[in-house]
Structures are given as structure tokens and as C-alpha cells.
């Protein structure tokens, strides 16, 4: 009995820590800017793909070599920066035009997530080349045109014309390269199939705990989560930029009046949140194979964490994620059904005792929870809320 409770808590915490890792960046971004980033899952996916790339690189040293065992740390750093850079580009290129319009942001970031999914599927030498050509000609063209004094008048036309022109140019380059070099450049780097990540030697297997084996990868992810939460906490509460982020979270206009560069704060926060998604992706990649749809599996759950936890406080995200994780595991394994002798109740819990049905139950629980705490566990109070 005690062992099964322990098992439930450990596994629940394990699921919850993954959720927490994934939701951390989302919660910061949502708390600060009120932006729901539908591409958050795809940023995780990019982190996971970065891990596979780093791993491929370290394979050059040989699979058994001591250096290979430590690829994961390089992968974590690389994943953070790749995701952060993409996030930065996303913020500067799309989201900053949509502040104050959260529903539109949601749609736009969904578009970005589709593009990123397709990107990892079809990225190859030619695709990269045409993408570079496209960006160079489009943004270069805009840069040149912006110098004209009558730019504002011809803006719409300029964008349309440049889009078409750059598209054609990219297509031509694509065709030329593909014709000249053939499969060497058209072969997708990843393709649609899933990529496998092998955990480094020291993370394989498990630590025996009584009758159970605690998988080392899960312990690693929990440690990683704790580190990230601590890191974020310290960053937000002990650094200048952290203080700026908190001040903008609480009162954007006042912060701007006090000379805090809110635009920079936005960009930085978004990059930070995206970087955290990258780290989460790297951690997740240890649990199984990585595919273009990896991110999709996480977004809804991470959103639920934000809804349950409430906005603006880190502790809400932590409690929300761990609570959902534990509830998920406890319902999914049918532990509740074993606790009762009543046949009807047992049958009821058995009905929900699969992974997918557990999600149904947890969602119902969340909806019930929201009837009592509509603003989440740790809501913000005061006159400014809900103007």
C-alpha cells in the first residue's frame, strides 16, 4: 500500500516535472505579455531536434567514447540557444505587431507552428538555400525600399511585389540546385519519420528502490526541472532584468514611464521562454523518439497548467504542473479503482484507467476546479484586474 502510494507520487511527480519544464516558458510569456504562444510546442520540438543533431555530431567521437556521454550538456545549451533565437525572431517578426490582440496572436503563432512542423520535415540543402535566398531578397528589398521617402504610400504594393518576386527567385534557385546536384541536396535531413535519441550511458537503466526501478532519465529530468525553476526564480528575483520583467508584468505602462525599455523586456522574456522550451524539448527527447509532431503532444497539457496555476506567479505553475501530473498518473493507472470496494465506483474508475481516458477525467476535474477558482490557484487581485 505504502509502496504503491510512493510509486504514484514518484511517477506523478515525474510526469508533472516534464509538464512543468514545458509549461515554465509558456507561463512566463503568458504572464508577461498575455500572449498564448501556440508555437511553444514546436519550439520544444526544435530543442529536441537540436539534441539529435548534437548527438549525431558527437557520434563522430565514437559511440562508446567518454566524450559522447556528455553530449547531453552541450545539447542542452545548444537547444536553449536555438529555441531562444527562433523565439526572438518570432517575437520581433510577428508577435510584437499583435500586442493587445491575444486571439490574433494565437492564430498567428499557430501558423508559425505549422510552418515549423513542415520545416523540420522538408528541410534539406535546397530548402535551406531557397529559404536564405527568399529572406535575403525580401528583407533586402524592404531595406532598400524603406529608404524611399514615399515608402508609406507604396507599402502594400511593395510587400506584395517583393513577396512574389522573392518567391519566384527562391523557386528558381531551388530548381537550379536540385537539377545540378540531385539527391545530395534534395534529400531531407530529417524527413517525416521520427528521430531516435539515445540517452548517454550514465543515464541508462535505473536506480533500484525497493521493488521498483526508478529510471535514471526521469530522475535527470526532475533534476533538470528543479534547476530550471530555481534558475528562473533567481533570474526573476535577483537580477536587474528580472526585476524589469516583473515590473512590466505588473504594470506595463508605468514601467514604460519609468524608462524601462519594455520592447527589449518583451523580446528578452520571449527569448527566455522559448529557450526554456528548447531545454524542455531536449529533456523530452530522452523519453522517446522525436518527430515533427512532438510539440503537439504537449501544448494542450501545458496550457492547462497555465490555466490551473493562474498567471503571474511561478508557484502557481509549479503546483499546477505537479498537481496535474499526479492526477494524471493516479487516474490513469486505476489506483483509485483499487482503493474502493464499491463495484459501481470501481467500474467508474476502471473506465478512466487508460492513458487517454485519464486525460478526459483530468480535464473534467480541471473544469470542476475552475468552477471554484476561475482565476486559477494563485490569482492576481486588486482594482486593475478585469477592468
Amino acid at each position, binding site marked *: 500500500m505504502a509502496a504503491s502510494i510512493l510509486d504514484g507520487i514518484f511517477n506523478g511527480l515525474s510526469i508533472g516535472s516534464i509538464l512543468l519544464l514545458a509549461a515554465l516558458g509558456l507561463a512566463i510569456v503568458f504572464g508577461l505579455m498575455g500572449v498564448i504562444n501556440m508555437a511553444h510546442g514546436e519550439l520544444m520540438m526544435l530543442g529536441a531536434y537540436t539534441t539529435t543533431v548534437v548527438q549525431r555530431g558527437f557520434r563522430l567521437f565514437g559511440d562508446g567514447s567518454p566524450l559522447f556521454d556528455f553530449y547531453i550538456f552541450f545539447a542542452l545549451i545548444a537547444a536553449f540557444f536555438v529555441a531562444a533565437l527562433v523565439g526572438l525572431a518570432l517575437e520581433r517578426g510577428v508577435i510584437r505587431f499583435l500586442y493587445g490582440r*491575444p486571439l490574433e496572436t494565437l*492564430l*498567428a503563432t499557430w*501558423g508559425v*507552428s*505549422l510552418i515549423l512542423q513542415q520545416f523540420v520535415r522538408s528541410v534539406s540543402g535546397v530548402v535551406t538555400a531557397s529559404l536564405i535566398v527568399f529572406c535575403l531578397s525580401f528583407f533586402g528589398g524592404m531595406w532598400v525600399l524603406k529608404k524611399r521617402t514615399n515608402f508609406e504610400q507604396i507599402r*502594400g504594393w511593395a510587400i506584395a511585389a517583393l513577396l512574389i518576386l522573392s518567391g519566384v527567385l527562391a523557386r528558381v534557385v531551388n530548381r537550379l540546385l536540385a537539377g545540378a546536384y540531385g539527391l545530395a541536396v534534395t534529400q531531407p535531413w530529417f524527413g517525416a519519420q521520427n528521430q531516435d535519441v539515445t540517452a548517454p550511458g550514465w543515464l541508462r537503466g535505473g536506480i533500484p528502490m525497493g521493488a521498483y526501478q526508478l529510471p535514471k532519465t526521469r530522475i535527470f529530468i526532475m533534476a533538470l526541472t528543479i534547476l530550471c525553476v530555481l534558475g528562473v526564480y533567481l533570474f526573476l528575483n535577483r537580477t536587474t532584468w528580472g526585476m524589469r520583467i516583473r515590473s512590466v508584468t505588473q504594470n506595463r505602462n508605468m514601467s514604460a514611464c519609468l524608462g524601462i525599455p519594455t520592447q527589449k523586456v518583451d523580446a528578452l522574456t520571449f527569448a527566455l521562454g522559448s529557450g526554456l522550451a528548447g531545454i524542455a524539448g531536449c529533456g523530452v527527447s530522452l523519453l522517446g523518439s522525436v518527430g515533427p509532431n512532438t510539440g503537439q503532444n504537449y501544448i494542450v497539457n501545458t496550457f492547462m497548467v497555465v490555466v490551473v496555476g493562474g498567471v503571474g506567479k511561478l508557484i502557481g505553475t509549479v503546483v499546477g504542473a505537479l498537481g496535474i501530473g499526479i492526477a494524471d498518473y493516479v487516474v490513469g493507472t486505476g489506483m483509485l479503482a483499487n482503493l474502493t470496494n464499491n463495484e459501481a465506483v470501481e467500474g467508474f474508475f476502471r473506465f478512466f484507467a*487508460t492513458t487517454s481516458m485519464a*486525460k478526459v477525467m483530468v480535464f473534467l476535474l480541471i473544469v470542476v476546479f475552475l*468552477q471554484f477558482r476561475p482565476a486559477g490557484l494563485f490569482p492576481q487581485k486588486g482594482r486593475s484586474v478585469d477592468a
Partner: protein
Amino acid sequence: MTVQASSERGGIDWVKYRPLLIEAAIVGAIALFLILVLPALLSGFRLTLMGRFLALAIVALGIDLIWGFTGLLSLGHGIFFTLGGYALAMHLKLPQPPGSGLPDFMSLYGVTELPWFWTPFYSFSFTAVAVVVLPALMAGLLGYVIFRNRIRGVYFSILTQAATIIFFNFFNGQQQLFNGTNGLTDFRTVLGQPIQNPGIQTSLYVLTIVFLIVAYALCRWLTSGRFGRLLVAIRDDESRTRFTGYNPTGFKVLVFAISGALAGVAGAMFTLQSGIVSPNTMNIAFSIEMVIWVAVGGRATLVGAILGALIVNFAKSLLSERFPDIWLFFQGGLFLGVVLLLPAGLLGWGRTQGVELYKQLMGQRRVATYPSLEEDPEVEHERKNLGD
């Protein structure tokens, strides 16, 4: 929306009803074109697609009602769409007469007795009601538990999205009840007629158009009166409506339920024409796609919703045939482009810039003033009174 203006004068005269009659005539003409002329112009395959897309236009109207007018971004209309589809499909899968056997897939999972909730679907009239009422009830319930707590904005969107994935999981997991991932397909007869019969298919096409017209009329009625203005008021400033004495919860629940019912009808018509309903239409992507149809056409314009659904879906079928690997790029770009560059949609663009562009091309130059003199009612007022 201009129809209402003339009703202010009161009294029943022809002038009052003329715009409405003209509109009805236009709708009728378009319907006749779709029913009589289009089959001659399009190949059989494209015509089938047209029929399905017209069904999708019905759900687009529902989305427009809830998002365009009331400002609630539902990412859960896939649920209602699919529920409508399942309700009809359950009727089609049940061997007639009642009691003559089980739906074919059930034997695969060793089910020997018909689950209780399948039984009422033997009756066609019950099914016809269920197609509308079931999604409406589900939407009403979901809406009620969310709206009564004043959960709104992105929270509403996220929760409806979560509900979508939950339903997706539920239907996928219930093989014995709903054939799981495979969904319900392989329908043979509808009302005793073989469903593949070209005559039946044509009448389904016509029926879809009829439903679309009914849905359009319903939305037109809902959005043009005081009720419609209150929906816009809720979109603009919900808490203000409370201080004016309205309880927005009831209005939102009602309009969400109506919107769900429209999605249910659309799902049923789509299922009939495509011959399959499966949990796939409850994935996250499909529900968001519905929103982009409306966004492309122009939200808060009913015609825009219908046009958007048709344009995007035809574009999708053409592009994904020719460039299957980069279709997602296009779709992603569409989301970005519409939100960033064309926030009012095609129709909204046509009304403002489009008209301007046309004038420019026709050689009419106009002086830019702010606020523009042509639109300033004070100028208008003075012009009228001075009688120049």
C-alpha cells in the same frame, strides 16, 4: 447590415422591405446558379468537393457568429461538427429494421448487445433532431460552465481546445462503442435508398445548399436586430453590458449553442457526402482551420464566412494536390498573412482599400483628408441642409 437603417421610419411600406427582398432575390439567384448551372460547369469530382465545402460553409457561419460577432474564439467547433456527424452516422450504421443485427464493426470487438444509447438512433426523426440538439446541448453545457465563471478571452480558447483533444481521446479510446480511430464509415442506405445512387448524391448537394440558406437566414436574423447589437456590445466591452443590466452569460451560452448546432448540421451533411466520420475531425488543427476560413473571408460579415470557407478549401484541395509537401507552409503563411496583413479579411479589404483601388485605377483622384470629408457626417449634414 444596411437593411436595418430603413426600418427606423416605422410603418409598413415597400421601401422598408425592399432591401430585404433584393437580398432574398440575390440569395435565390445564387442558389439556383449552384443547383442548376454549376453541375454543368464542374467535373463530378469537383462538384462533390463543392458539396462538402458548402457544408463546411455552414460551420463557418457558426464560427462567425461566435467569433466575428461575439468575440469568442472557439477552438472546439470540431467537437460539435463531429458530434453531428456521429449522430447521423450511428443512424446509418444501424441495420434496418430495428433488432436485425448490430453495426458491422461491433462484431470485431466481440460486442453482442447493442449499447443502450444506440437504440434511439433507429428512428430517423430522432436522429434528425439529435443532429441539431446534441451538439447544441454539448456547446451549451461547455459554454455554461466556462461563461458562468467569467472565464473568457484566451482562457476560453484554451479550454475549448482542451475539450477538443478530450473528445478526440474519448472517441479514439472507445472502440466498442464508436469503432475508435477508424470511425464510422461504409454507409449503405439512407432512408431505404442506396447512398451511392447519383440521384441521392445530387439531392444531398441540394439539401446542403438549402441548409446553408437556412443557416444564413438564421444568422442574418440573429445579427441584425437588438440581439445582434448586444453580441457586438459583448465583444466590445463585456463587463459594460453587465452595468447596463444585461447578463452576458445567457447570451453567450445561447449563441454558442446555436453556433454548435450549426456545426452539427454541417458535420452531418459533410458525413453524408464524404461517407465517413471519424475522430480525425476532432483534432486540434481542424478546429483552428475553421477559424481561418472566417478570418480570410472577413469576420463579422456572414457572406465573408461563406466565401472564406469555399476559397480556402478549394485552395487547399488544389494546392495539396499539386504540392503535397509544402501545403503546410502555405497554410501557416495563410494564418500569418491574414492576421498581420489582412485583419479585416477579403471582404473587409474589398470594402475599404478595394473600393479605393478601383477608384484609383479608374482615374479618380481624391484628396486625403483627416477625417475624410466624404465620410464626415457633419459635412454630410450640412450639405443636406444647405442643399448645395
